[in-house]
């Protein structure tokens, strides 16, 4: 006898409702002997693809459905919606979940799936409030409808009104007829509500009376017994209320019960309904029959595994085939770029024909045309666009204008991108300006139509911090406690919470109090990886033919209102939907802004795509390692690597970017490369034949392309096969087979055993560490462009960076860098500042300076900034107030940072005037006019802001220390301590013990070669940057301080690895802000005991017990490395300053 089929099961994709993943559900169904299982998530089909795949693996037949809130035909059934309640003064209103819910199951293949998609999309259509399916949309062929306890009919039964239930049933019957089922559920609850025996019995009785078929379900919310408390937390998180200690709580019965348990349930129900006990089998039979009718095949009906491109007519191939159009456009590209007139034109033509053959082989021509169309459209909008990824290796892409770099010249291979041997959808990623990304999306929708385009969803899942916040709130913990605990954790998985507390030194404080929080940790781990919300994926765009909406449910994104598929990136790939990655890159926006500024200020247009290659001053800048703000090479590790590698041309940049990856760093490919490059070690090749591909990197394998070439040369298998081999290398199983094959094939070509062994060693060690050269070339273009801007138009460069903030460092650090490089920083001024950062010729020095932007003022709205900028110039405070109409707090902030200094009087007097202007605006103008004597503002005798207050105001309002570096104020104290400045540090010797201090700029715990956890952080002290590393042995004493302080004083030892490579290995760290406070209050004598305090003694044994995570790529990693560290990301201005009692506001 086949097992019971659960017709109503929700997974974690029912946001904050289901407690188990689809994979878990499918696995449990198989373990408990079930043949089939339905997934009926609330308001979404997002779990369907994962569920289908998991079911396939488990050997369970998947049924698809959705549980939707349906606006009932009778308005009276809307529950509490009619009665408007008073708006609460605090805490917000209850989440309204009163709309009746109905389960829809897809029955008849592809039409049913399409209908299901349509229903879900219709429920989300309004885009505001909870999704509700309007009654007029609630019709569909091929669907089975379950009316359960939460439906309007079920509610009427629960209320003891079978008459009313019969009346409510009529419209359902009219629409769905035979496809209607009544759903009985028993969870052992008392009373007559959902889950009670009496309601279940009433339902079965009512079904008999109405001649409808009843089914039995368990309304499953979690896979296993004992997950009730997790469901309670989810309920609390969804409804935004704490768990009431008095209940009602989850019954604990809503798990994936097996056949026997469900039979027992059925028996109780039919007996309670007054039938004979063996009627229970009839009930189960009905349920089974309902399941058997639902025939939706994941392959045929949902479309997993098939590919659909937009219709060729839409991409300029109306009358000819797409392949013909592609060929002629490629040929046109050859002519346009002049490749047909080059001496090596033949190479190019051969490559083009070869690539076109591959494209034709797969029939992907319209894909290329689609991407080309998108890129053309983007370029027509005047938006910077660049291709990235392996697509840059295709000459056709280059000829179509998708990729910038010439793949032939850079030695990029088509096979890495697409070959006849690989049947995967190629992917071409394009980078656009981040600030205009949505514009690009809208252009794509405009071009292809809303029925073919949708963005991709990205489920946000519970990680430890959110899990702590939601569980803590559900358990009524003190909000301050919740916040403190959550922030103490690095961004790790929720299920690692307790392990992290045991192992991480900076969590020792939390671990000590862990017991007090009781169930918290267990529940936090129970939420692990459950989706808690859904956002738009930052780059994916779906492009399909007109059948898109029949294949994916679509909802509008909150905020932008763009159509978004409920499927995420991986689902979309499984579904064979064409996804184009359109990535918003802030650096592109920053460079566009910089170029526009240069043009605005000087009148000469600047085309960044046409700047001279190999510019010597650009490479001089890069070699100096002062690359803050430059794309890809600004991180501390990269600055160190650039300093050691000393790039001299574009190719060096490509290598540099490829080397700075976890893989190559871990495999220590960096050192031999640098040694060979500087001639300190000889260049070695395993065989002279391999000199050709390896010459460019001094015999060190850096790129995927080189491995492909090596395998190709040694075995003669062809590059397409070689790429397949390369992909197989990362899998230990296939590696053995490849090794055998490689030895055989190479021996057949006459290579000696020794050569083969040596080469295999290289190939094997390389694994999949390396980097696709096409990627690196695509990255290196903006890297060079940004460095060129920094070398030639520094002011515009900083203006662009400050406006679009692309980097890893806080803005104030960029400002400090600008000051160090002699770019004047001009203060905010309502008569001169624009919405964005601008460049301005400073009259004193004749240098271009950066004028700070209005948009950086805390709390300014876009409209206000526009208005202020549009009204310039202003002649007086009154003029400004009347025309720019700033809000009072905004005007006060502008006054505090000196943006109104031009109007006379001091900053506090200005504030007083502003207050009175506001009072005047409300109609009660005081007896005295605030502005006597024309345009100047009269002084009121208030004390002006002192220096410290001004700096504090700048940090508070602009989050930047605009007038000077905030560390300057502590200089006297730092001199007392004997702190070495970043500038003086450059002359320090290797092994010196030094004291350094500064504002913490960026902190990381990246995976590193030794498999240890190292905390890297960068301090800024106004004279430069100090890069610090804290190794394992100092973590006990330092980790907490480093993660949770903004100003640091660190004792450490200088490490030198080259003339430009310098870092400090930290041994002790103190919170400088505390020390400054002590110094101010108690003098040096108060500071001394703090410095004398021993750090916590080292814990001795390694708490991780040598546990290492073995990465796919073969190297080992510390379990807690590569995580976003605890604390807050980077200091914003506000936090860097103690608000003194006399602060400016």
């Amino acid at each position, binding site marked *: 006898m086949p097992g019971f089929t659960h017709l109503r099961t929700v997974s974690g994709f029912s946001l904050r409702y289901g407690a188990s993943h689809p994979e878990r559900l499918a696995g449990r169904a198989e373990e408990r002997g079930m043949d089939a299982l339905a997934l009926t998530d609330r308001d979404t089909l997002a779990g369907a693809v994962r569920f289908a795949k998991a079911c396939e693996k488990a050997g369970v037949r998947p049924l698809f459905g959705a549980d939707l809130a349906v606006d009932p035909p009778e308005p009276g059934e809307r529950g509490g919606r009619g009665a408007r309640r008073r708006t609460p003064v605090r805490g917000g209103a209850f989440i309204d979940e009163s709309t009746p819910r109905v389960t829809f199951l897809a029955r008849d293949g592809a039409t049913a799936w399409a209908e299901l998609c349509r229903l879900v999309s219709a429920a989300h259509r309004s885009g505001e409030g909870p999704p509700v399916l309007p009654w007029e949309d609630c019709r569909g062929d091929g669907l089975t409808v379950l009316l359960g306890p939460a439906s309007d009919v079920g509610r009427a039964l629960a209320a003891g009104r079978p008459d009313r239930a019969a009346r409510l049933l009529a419209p359902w019957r009219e629409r769905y007829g035979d496809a209607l089922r009544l759903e009985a559920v028993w969870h052992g609850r008392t009373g007559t509500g959902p889950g009670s025996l009496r309601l279940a019995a009433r339902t079965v009785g009512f079904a008999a009376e109405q001649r409808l078929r009843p089914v039995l379900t368990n309304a499953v919310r979690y896979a296993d017994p004992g997950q009730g408390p997790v469901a309670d937390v989810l309920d609390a998180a969804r409804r935004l209320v704490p768990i009431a200690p008095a209940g009602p709580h989850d019954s604990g019965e809503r798990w994936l019960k097996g056949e026997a348990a469900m039979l027992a349930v059925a028996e109780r129900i039919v007996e309670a309904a007054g039938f004979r006990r063996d009627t229970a089998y009839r009930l189960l039979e009905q349920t089974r029959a309902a399941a058997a009718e639902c025939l939706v095949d994941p392959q045929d009906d949902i479309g997993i595994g098939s590919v659909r491109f937009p219709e060729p007519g839409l991409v300029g191939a109306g009358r000819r085939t797409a392949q013909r159009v592609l060929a002629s456009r490629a040929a046109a590209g050859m002519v346009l770029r002049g490749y047909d007139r080059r001496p090596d034109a033949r190479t190019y033509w051969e490559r083009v024909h070869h690539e076109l053959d591959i494209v034709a082989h797969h029939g992907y021509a319209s894909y290329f045309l689609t991407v080309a169309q998108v890129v053309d459209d983007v370029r027509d909008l005047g938006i910077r666009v660049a291709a990235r990824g392996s697509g840059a290796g295709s000459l056709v892409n280059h000829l179509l204008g998708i990729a910038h770099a010439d793949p032939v010249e850079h030695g990029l291979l088509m096979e890495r991108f697409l070959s006849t041997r690989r049947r995967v959808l190629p992917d071409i990623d394009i980078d656009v300006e981040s600030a205009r990304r949505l514009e690009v999306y809208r252009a794509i929708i405009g071009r292809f139509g809303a029925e073919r385009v949708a963005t991709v969803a990205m489920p946000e899942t519970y990680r430890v911090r959110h899990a702590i916040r939601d569980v803590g709130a559900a358990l*009524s913990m003190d909000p301050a406690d919740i916040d403190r605990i959550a922030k103490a954790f690095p961004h790790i998985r929720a299920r690692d919470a307790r392990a992290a507390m045991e192992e991480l030194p900076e969590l020792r404080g939390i671990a000590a109090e862990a017991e007090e929080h009781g169930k918290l940790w267990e529940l936090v781990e129970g939420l692990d990886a459950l989706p808690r919300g859904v956002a738009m994926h930052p780059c994916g765009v779906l492009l399909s033919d007109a059948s898109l909406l029949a294949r994916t449910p679509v909802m509008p994104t909150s905020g932008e209102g763009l159509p978004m598929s409920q499927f995420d990136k991986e689902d979309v790939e499984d579904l064979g939907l064409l996804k184009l990655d359109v990535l918003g890159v802030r650096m592109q926006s920053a460079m566009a802004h910089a170029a526009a500024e240069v043009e605005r200020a000087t009148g000469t247009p600047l085309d960044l795509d046409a700047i001279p290659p190999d510019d010597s001053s650009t490479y001089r800048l890069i070699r100096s390692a002062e690359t803050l703000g430059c794309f890809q090479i600004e991180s501390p590790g990269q600055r160190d690597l650039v300093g050691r590698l000393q790039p001299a041309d574009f190719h060096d940049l490509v290598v540099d970017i490829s080397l700075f990856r976890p893989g190559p760093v871990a495999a220590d490919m960096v050192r031999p490369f640098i040694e060979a490059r500087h001639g300190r070690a000889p260049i070695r090749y395993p065989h002279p034949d391999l000199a050709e591909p390896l010459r460019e990197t001094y015999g060190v394998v850096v790129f995927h392309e080189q491995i492909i070439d090596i395998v190709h040369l040694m075995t003669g298998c062809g590059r397409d096969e070689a790429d397949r081999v390369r992909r197989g290398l990362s899998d230990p199983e296939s590696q053995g087979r490849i090794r055998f094959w490689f030895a055989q094939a190479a021996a057949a070509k006459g290579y000696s055993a020794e050569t083969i062994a040596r080469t295999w060693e290289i190939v094997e060690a390389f694994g999949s560490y390396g980097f696709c050269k096409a990627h690196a070339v695509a990255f290196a273009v903006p890297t060079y462009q940004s460095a060129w801007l920094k070398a030639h138009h520094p002011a515009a460069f900083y203006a662009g960076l400050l406006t679009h903030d692309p980097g890893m460092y806080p803005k104030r650090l960029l400002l400090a860098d600008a000051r160090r490089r002699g770019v004047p920083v001009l203060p905010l001024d309502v008569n001169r500042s624009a919405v964005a950062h601008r460049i301005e010729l400073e009259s004193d020095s004749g240098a271009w300076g950066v004028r700070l932007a209005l948009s950086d003022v805390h709390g300014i709205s876009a409209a206000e900034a526009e208005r202020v900028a549009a009204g310039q110039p202003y002649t007086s405070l009154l003029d400004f107030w009347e025309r720019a109409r700033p809000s009072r707090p905004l005007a006060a902030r502008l006054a505090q940072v000196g943006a109104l200094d031009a109007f006379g009087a001091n900053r506090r007097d200005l504030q007083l005037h502003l207050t009175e202007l506001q009072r005047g605006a409300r109609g009660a103008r005081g007896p005295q006019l605030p502005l006597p004597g024309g345009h100047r503002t009269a002084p*009121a*005798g*208030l*004390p*002006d802001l002192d220096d410290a207050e001004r700096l504090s105001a700048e940090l508070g309002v602009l989050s930047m220390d605009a007038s000077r570096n905030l560390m300057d104020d502590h200089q006297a104290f730092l001199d007392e301590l004997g702190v070495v400045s970043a500038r003086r540090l450059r002359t320090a010797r290797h092994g010196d013990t030094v004291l350094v201090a500064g504002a913490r700029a960026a902190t990381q715990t990246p995976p590193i070669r030794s498999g240890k956890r190292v905390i890297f952080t960068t301090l800024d002290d106004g004279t430069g940057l100090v890069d610090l590393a804290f190794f394992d042995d100092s973590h006990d004493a330092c980790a907490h301080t480093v993660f949770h302080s903004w100003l640091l004083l660190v004792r450490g030892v200088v490490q030198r690895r080259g003339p430009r490579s310098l870092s400090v290995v930290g041994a002790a760290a103190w919170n400088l802000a505390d020390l400054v406070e002590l110094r101010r209050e108690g003098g040096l004598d108060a500071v001394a005991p703090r410095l004398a305090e021993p750090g916590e003694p080292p814990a001795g044994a390694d708490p991780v017990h040598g546990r290492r995570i073995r990465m796919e790529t073969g190297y080992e990693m510390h379990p807690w490395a590569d995580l976003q560290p605890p604390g807050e990301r980077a200091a914003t201005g506000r936090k860097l300053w103690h608000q003194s009692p006399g602060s*400016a506001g």
Partner: protein
Amino acid sequence: MTILCVRFQLPPMYEAALPGLLGLLEEFTPVVEALPPDGALADLRGAERYFGRGAADLAPVIRVRALARYGVDCVIGAGPGPMLARMALREARPGVTRAVPGDAAAEFLADQPVAALPGVGSRTARTLCEYGLDTLGRVAAAPLSTLQRLVGTKAGRELHEKANGVDRGRVVPNAVSRSLATERAFPHDELDPDRHRRALLSAAEELGTRLRALDKVCRTLTLTVRYADRSATTRSRSLKEPTAHSAALTKAAYGMYEALGLQRARVRAITLRAEGLDPAEQASYQLTFDPLDERARRIEAVADRARAKFGPGAIVPGALAA
């Protein structure tokens, strides 16, 4: 140097002890002004001559008497006027009386934060700090007209005078206990309106009982709801007529609570405060033809007697009994 400001270190919500402590002060001088819930001002001008020692020297006497007779410690500040005495109190500790002589007033005030000045509430203090006038020294240095522009004409003048050490206040003898308060805390975040109402009912019952025991009536009822994030909402309502009748207090409390319309707010405590206390005999009472009201009052009187005999828990409203 004749005014003392005394703060008794009473356990919270123990205002009932204050009248006795004021009696202690009245042994020294008849000019005693109560500062509920736990303080008092005493003008010792006459007493200095009588006792033959200065006010500051009398402070230890007051302290030992309070300790000996009531077991209550106190801190004492002394100054030439009520304002300076109150400000001096801020720096006093048990056993250490802080005295501010009149000629040292300006020096003493200069470093004091504005919020320390009696009569400067949190709002005025915020306004002044916003304009950099965070200490009284800076306030004193600011032009009078500017101060008046900041806080208004009258308040500005007063502020100017006070900041310059001009203390025009006098000690006005008054009665004790201008307010009574009681709090109901919840052990966890409580959202259930029924439990909130039960807390209100029980608090109102308690206030009524205490008021009647003191023979007082109150004019105003104030409801403070505290939330999990340590914020609070406060609402006040003037009663139709001054009363100590539990039913009337409960009705007013319910009214204020309903007006908040709380739904998801995480309530941790509810405080009810009866303000504007007057002697019961001065209260007017609107007679009605409704016998229910009359009956309720009679039952209340009986219940009060039963409580007096068998303890406060002897009779409680049915809703609270469960």
